[in-house]
């Protein structure tokens, strides 16, 4: 159960990135076509989410029984006004996907923020204080790892009552342990470095040592991990919607659209297909960027 003790993640220590290294990392990032594609897709998704009222062709909530199950425009019977077709109550699927990007992005980014605060703090404390604090924190990590992912989120969202805030907090509180493990391992290695010794020798306070000397040197890994976690949180939010404990709001979410589409999969394939493609593209884009960031920032890969 404790991979933390058996096979510690091989974490090399990042020296503070000098400027030349940083620009090299940036060059590595932009020279990769997959990463550029990822960035472009992400820009489109973020743009759509922010400007939803201006770019969505229709009101995402407006129903029209006359237009139910209009197929996508390239299928016989399609209507050019509804590019990706309409759903079982005649709502425009493209508009709903555009609005759905809002919830996915908000949940993804906010859940990661919650995980970051909890996970990094515990990792810093655990690695810096060691001893009893470390033992307690690592036990909590082991307990968290014992639950199949999503299962805990499912149970707690149900108990607390589905809402956007609940989903964000619960997803955040079930995804922090990766930061704790990595930050702890890095801090344990950094403690032995000369510059930390020197800071201690000239009488830096513990808080100053943590914030000024230890934390900044874990940024590379934190950036990479949090990018990849945004992708996972988006997938998890969709899965929670599918399992019936969604955001509880009337606003369209991608997961909820797929769930509704499942019931009509034999008569109208487009209902479930397009929101899923939206998730796939967004998550793929984030993963591509995250992976390239890892290559660019992670000293192990360089």
């Amino acid at each position, binding site marked *: 159960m404790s991979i933390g003790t058996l096979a510690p993640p091989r974490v090399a220590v990042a020296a503070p990135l000098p400027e030349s290294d940083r620009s090299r990392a940036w060059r590595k990032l932009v020279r990769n076509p997959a990463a550029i594609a990822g960035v472009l897709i992400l820009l489109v998704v973020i743009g759509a989410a922010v400007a939803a009222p201006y770019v969505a062709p229709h009101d995402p909530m407006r129903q029209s029984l006359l237009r139910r199950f209009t197929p996508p425009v390239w299928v016989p019977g399609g209507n050019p006004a509804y590019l990706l077709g309409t759903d079982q109550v005649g709502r425009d699927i493209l508009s709903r996907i555009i609005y759905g990007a809002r919830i996915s992005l908000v949940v993804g980014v906010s859940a990661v923020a919650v995980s970051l605060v909890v996970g990094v703090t515990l990792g810093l404390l655990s690695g810096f204080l060691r001893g009893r604090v470390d033992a307690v924190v690592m036990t909590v990590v*082991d307990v968290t790892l*014992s639950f199949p*992912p999503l*299962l805990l989120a499912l149970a707690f969202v149900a108990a607390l009552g589905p809402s956007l805030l609940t989903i964000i907090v619960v997803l955040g509180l079930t995804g922090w342990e990766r930061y704790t493990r990595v930050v702890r391992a890095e801090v344990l290695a950094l403690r032995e470095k000369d510059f930390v010794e020197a800071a201690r020798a000239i009488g830096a306070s513990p808080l100053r040592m943590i914030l000024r000397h230890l934390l900044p040197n874990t940024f590379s890994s934190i950036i990479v991990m949090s990018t990849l976690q945004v992708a996972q949180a988006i*997938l998890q939010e969709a899965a929670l919607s599918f*399992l019936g404990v969604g955001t509880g709001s009337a606003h369209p979410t991608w997961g909820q659209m797929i769930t509704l589409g499942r019931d009509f*999969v034999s008569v109208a394939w487009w209902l479930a297909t397009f929101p899923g493609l939206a998730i796939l593209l967004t998550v793929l884009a984030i993963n591509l960027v995250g992976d390239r960031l890892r290559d660019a920032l992670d000293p192990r890969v360089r």
Partner: protein
Amino acid sequence: MLTLVARRFVRLLVVLAGVSLVTFAILHVSGDPVALMMPEAPEADRAGLRQSMGFNDPLALQFARFVGNISRGDFGQSFFHRAPALALVLERMPVTLLLTVIAMGLSLSLAIPIGILSAVRRNSVVDHSATFVVFLGTSMPVFWTGIMLILLFAVRFRLLPVSGWESWAALILPTLTLASVSTPLLLRIVRSSMLEVINLDYVRTARAKGVSEWLVICHHALINAALPLVTVAGLQFGLLLGGAIITETVFALPGVGRLIVGAIRQLDFPIVQAGVFVLALIVVLVNFVVDMLYLYLNPQIRVR
């Protein structure tokens, strides 16, 4: 070696205590378990139930009672099915375990050869396609993958059943769906751990001695690459159980996952608690076994 095993065992017990605490918290996190169980009941009835079920006692006492009960296998009666919650969960367990084990087997039998091939022929077409599939696989929502497979194989081509559990054919789509979660991750591990050992001195020595390429890869490299794979496969088991919950819901399979999801809709918390605890227990035990296996396989630890 013995002290290591003993220490692992103590750790197992501590983690199990933590798992029970979290399971206990599911019902108590909202502050009022009775309101959660019967949202429509009048306050007088709720007060009575609160008293009779001991929800007014200190939380520590309630937790002690909970641990006592679950150690005897008593998670309470299901509100909806009027039967012991644990029995209902255990009854559904074989479906979930069968699905998970088959998917794990499929994942490993795909990930190991493809991963080795991609590492050995680095930057070849195989390697690039494998990397592409890994990215695609980790970016797809599981339930959507399942629905798309239904759309393709059950609705469009009418080859396989949409749902159910009656025939082996009905197992194909759920297994593929679930395997799509774990295969990419295992493939990535196999590839990277093979890449790590493949250029080490001892592998080069073996090559220089004239050992055949096939033997070098299978005997010298793979055995050492297998250690991280064992650990990751253990951790993946939890991931697969989580994926099984979703897969069972997509394909309407009578497993624990679907039972839990149904129980959540009916606010049937004894079942939720029993299900969560049993699944976590399985993950803990699997990883304990994996840990032991690791101790046994790793000569560096074994000698000590």
